């Protein structure tokens, strides 16, 4: 069943039919969550088996990362407000705010990498297990943020159908969700 050939609903007539766009995104998110899950398992395994593991607080700056975390949290709120906005103007405003917050997060991540690479005791990829897993997890997440920003930009500039916004919002909330365990396990959980 379609409208203008662009949307398909499965189970129309029932209380909550499935929209293909949203259902496809949920399926993608499930598979993507498994990707993150695999990385978390690898991180946990390597960390538990390592003879020694540095205290994350001693090697990573927590304050800027906490600020980045709040930027991502607020962006989820602005994204939700964008999807529920009553007018195109309000929606555009909330979307712009979401974009700015996402760019802030990504810029913060790049600045953190730069700081770690140029520090007196640099944290280089492949330097040790801590560094490798840190860059792998945060880099994988940063790529997701970048992809989300590209999608958001497309919606904001009007190159995507407005109805795509709801699907993009699902992805953006997932990016926020995926950051939470990274923040907890990589930055906060003490060594012993």
């Amino acid at each position, binding site marked *: 069943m379609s409208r203008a050939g662009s949307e398909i609903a499965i189970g129309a007539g029932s209380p*909550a039919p499935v929209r293909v766009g949203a259902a496809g995104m949920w399926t993608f998110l499930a598979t993507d969550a498994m990707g993150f899950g695999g990385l978390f398992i690898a991180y946990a395994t390597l960390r538990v088996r390592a003879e020694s593991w540095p205290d994350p607080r001693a090697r990573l700056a927590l304050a800027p990362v906490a600020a980045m*975390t709040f930027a991502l949290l607020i962006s989820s709120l602005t994204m939700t407000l964008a999807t529920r906005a009553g007018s195109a103007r309000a929606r555009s405003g909330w979307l712009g705010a979401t974009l700015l917050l996402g760019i802030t997060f990504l810029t913060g991540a790049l600045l953190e990498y730069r700081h770690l690479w140029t520090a007196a005791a640099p944290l280089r990829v492949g330097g040790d297990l801590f560094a490798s897993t840190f860059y792998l997890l945060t880099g994988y997440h940063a790529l997701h943020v970048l992809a989300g920003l590209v999608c958001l930009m497309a919606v904001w500039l009007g190159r995507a159908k407005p109805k795509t916004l*709801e699907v993009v919002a699902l992805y953006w909330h997932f990016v926020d969700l995926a950051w939470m365990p990274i923040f907890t396990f990589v930055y906060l959980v003490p060594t012993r």
Partner: protein
Amino acid sequence: MSGAALETGSARSPDGPAAAAPPDRVGATVIGFAILAGLTVAELVVADLDAAGRARVTALCGLLIAKVGIVLAVFLRVGARRRDPRLALAALLFASSSAAILMLEMAFRVRQR
């Protein structure tokens, strides 16, 4: 194929994906966000506490679970969207359960060595 594509619970406005949400739903979203921010601050406080490492890890995991639950309920609205995420959530639960079992098994093996 013919017929309208129906949405998952919200009315649609002519110029966009969703009509203005009722104030109570926006309020619930803002409250959910405030709780999330509070839990994040609590995480930072717990990480700074001068308590035993095991107690801090337990507290941090509890806070993380609460945060994930709020994002799923308030932002992703898995309770309101019935069919869309059902299959995906089943996969998610399966994956996370498998991950937990694998991690427990790995921790057990490491302790055995």
